[in-house]
């Protein structure tokens, strides 16, 4: 199958590669670019383990062709903080036991990161609704919701302090 020439900006770095038109973005990231933070849990958009940001929107990369991402700016869990450091959300998940096996966590945090930009000061209901595209089998969500709400207040407090 003839390959397409793709340019992507992933976590701030320009990437160029050849990929078949049918190749999925998640496979290109994981297998060609060694970005293994986003995971594959269902390949049908239901579980959200592959969630990343593409041009400022949360997308499930298991149902996006890499070709559709040509020219796009992509952020994965690896791009949310400087390598070896944790941002407010990542810290909050650790602090409030918002993860167990860790498989859903990269998608979960990446989605939460976008959610808090969409709704900087969400209610619990808004968090539960806004996270409903990401499945977790371990935590029962209670501590995920708690982590996100805690991160939101910390971020808002920091913003207020800066203003």
């Amino acid at each position: 199958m003839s390959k397409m020439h793709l340019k992507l900006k992933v976590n701030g770095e320009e990437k160029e590669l050849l990929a078949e038109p049918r190749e999925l973005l998640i496979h290109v990231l994981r297998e060609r670019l060694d970005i293994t933070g986003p995971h594959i849990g269902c390949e049908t958009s239901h579980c959200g383990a592959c969630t990343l940001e593409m041009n400022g929107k949360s997308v499930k990369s298991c149902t996006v062709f890499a070709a559709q991402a040509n020219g796009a700016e992509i952020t994965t869990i690896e791009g949310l903080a400087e390598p070896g450091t944790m941002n407010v959300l990542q810290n909050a998940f650790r602090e409030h036991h918002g993860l167990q096996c860790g498989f859903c966590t990269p998608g979960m945090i990446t989605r939460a990161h976008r959610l808090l930009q969409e709704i900087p000061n969400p209610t619990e209901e808004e968090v539960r609704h806004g996270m409903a595209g990401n499945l977790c089998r371990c935590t029962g969500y209670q501590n995920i919701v708690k982590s996100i709400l805690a991160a939101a207040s910390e971020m808002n407090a920091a913003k207020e302090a800066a203003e």
Partner: protein
Amino acid sequence: MNDLTPTSEERSAKLKGLGHSRKRVEDARFTQGKGNYVDDIKLPGMLFGDFVRSPYAHARVKSINVEAALALPGVIAVLTAKDLEPLNLHWMPTLAGDKQMVLADGKVLFQGQEVAFVIAEDRYINADAIDLVEVEYEELPVITDPFKAMEPDAVVLREDLAGQTTGAHGERRHHNHIFLWESGDKEATEDVINSADVVAEEMVYYHRTHPCPLETCGSVASMDKVNGKLTVWGTFQAPHVVRTVASLLSGIEEHNIRIVSPDIGGGFGNKVGVYPGYVCSIVASIVTGKPVKWVEDRMDNLMATAFARDYWMKGKISATKDGKITGLQCHVTADHGAFDACADPTKFPAGFMNICTGSYDIPVAYLGVDGVYTNKAPGGVAYRCSFRVTEAAYFIERMIEVLAIELGMDAAELRAKNFIRKDQFPYQSALGWEYDSGDYHTAWTKALNAVGYKDLRKEQSERVAAFNRGETRSLLGIGLCHFTEIVGAGPVKNCDILGMGMFDSCEIRIHPTGSAIARLGTISQGQGHATTFAQILASEIGLPADSITIEEGDTDTAPYGLGTYGSRSTPVAGAAAAMAGRKIRAKAQMIAAYLLEVHDNDVEWDIDRFAVKGAPEKFKTMAEIAYASYNQAVPGVEPGLEAVSYYDPPNMTYPFGAYVCVMEIDVDTGVHEIRQFYALDDCGTRINPMIIEGQVHGGLTEALAIAMGQEIAYDEIGNVKTGTLMDFFIPTAWETPHYTTDFTETPSPHHPIGAKGVGESPNVGGVPAFSNAVHDAFRAFGLRHAHMPHDQWRIWKIANDLGMHG
């Protein structure tokens, strides 16, 4: 001493030992996307393997033509049963004493069964090649109902067993029968029930479902032909047993096999079994000389690897007029699918189903379980429960409710009247178990008070009256459950898997500067072992948990153990950790006494040090002792500070809990809303309260899924109707309620630190609580029992069948 001398409390707090809500050490890598799961493994020259699967539930395989597939560039090989037969690997033994086809040998017995294994350079070429493999099938009659399977003229499913009237667990009385397993006194139970004041009878079905961890099963096999060493990374909940099985099957000596369980993305029982994918990736690597990766997709996972439950439980429970239970009888028709691949200890083909007397003092009981073959996927794993304990708890907690209806009694009162009393422990159950400890009445009273049970009942009767007046269409259900689990398998004298005794192990090595590494025979799948095992050790050896590395899952380095499932890690490996820690301490005592120039018996342990008795200012900390063990010659004591313990538990542990679910149900739509869920767990000594709470939240959510909609359903020709996450219910954050957790603490008398295990309690207790809430809402309108899962349509149908839609 002066003001700067840390107090006992400060020294103790610094250790972050037992009882400390220590933050998890695993989380730094997981939150940064740096976990290392099987599908993250990438080796030079690695190939991809995947299966051609059967579209039919029962068919003869007439021919397999692989030519077109092999002609596709990038395809390396296609394996069929014919290729595996010379290696004697076309069938494999199951954990239950049966055998299972690795690749279809003449016929297929369930939809999704593995027919051929395609090996290609990448997963896209692999998918193309799978489409090019031509398989000619001849359809055969399909049986998906275990009762029909046992009819005299039912089609023969397992032709390979023709003429075999005895199986691994005794007599087979029909060609589709696997075993009859019995427990208790049948005649005495019948006598009691036949002469009882009151008898309640019910068929309780616990439907087929699936553990469905977010990460599917997979493996990467790499045969190093130069060194003759096989390494397999895989989603294994029991890596050491996998190594032994791999050695026995392949003929490769066990020391030349290294099994590694890397990070595991949830297991819940799904990753206990040995699957054709593991075998085929190993064979493929041996054949090609290259690493071969196999990873299931979600449909493969739901269709082919490790279903759970599927128990038809027919029960009779008898009582006196005033509600004292006198006897319990249960007969189970157990649908095991096409091969008996249940993951149970060898001597327990129906697991610990004989814990079905639950939390109650029942003088006499009988259980019989008939295992039956059907055209469904093999499995029968314990989905977040100890072996068949969820089925047992659901059965007894439904029978209690039905008996309460029969007696016209309040179900909470009926429970309290029949609980095993605190002073009866250790308690010998009618079906042969010795319950180690419990205080059910205290837990029950605490739970009922916490939810305001009396007020809830009052509100409920007012609601019923309002409904009858036509003022509301919403009902209130109060779901009760008091469960007793049996976990921590188990004593080697009666528990083994494939002959391997179910002990577990811990090996500790203290480094000169006072930090340590400990390795165990278990493997975390999210439970946080790296955090909690270090806490057990911190309390035992007095080094901070933060200075103790925990390693599991690499059979080249970890001591042999039976793995993580059935809530056995804390009861068994946790005990091994404590015992190994005590060996360290015993040696440290001798070193400390030498350094302090006193007799061994003249020093005593104090949190993180040995101090001279009566002179606490004279002491050596564990860190100082560790250093001394490497640089001082202590007469009569070997250098170094290491210990290993293999722990054979003297008994199981018996965690218990009291749950209450308050549910609103809309009669016209079948929609439910959980208003309150209160979960009190008693798991003995609590190691890390934060992690316990997290385990309870997660297990309750799995229970919610199972009770309220999750199932593996088949149509009459054996098509899986719930093979994707579109159809297979997993609650999102939106549907999941808020839980209130609580606890009592009744330590296990035989466990070194009194811990019992908690990971599975919420699933075991949660399912009856949710289900009983649905039933309870309709009790006033005449409902006795309705099968799970209680999805909206089924709840609507309950109301409709009761004539509540006018």
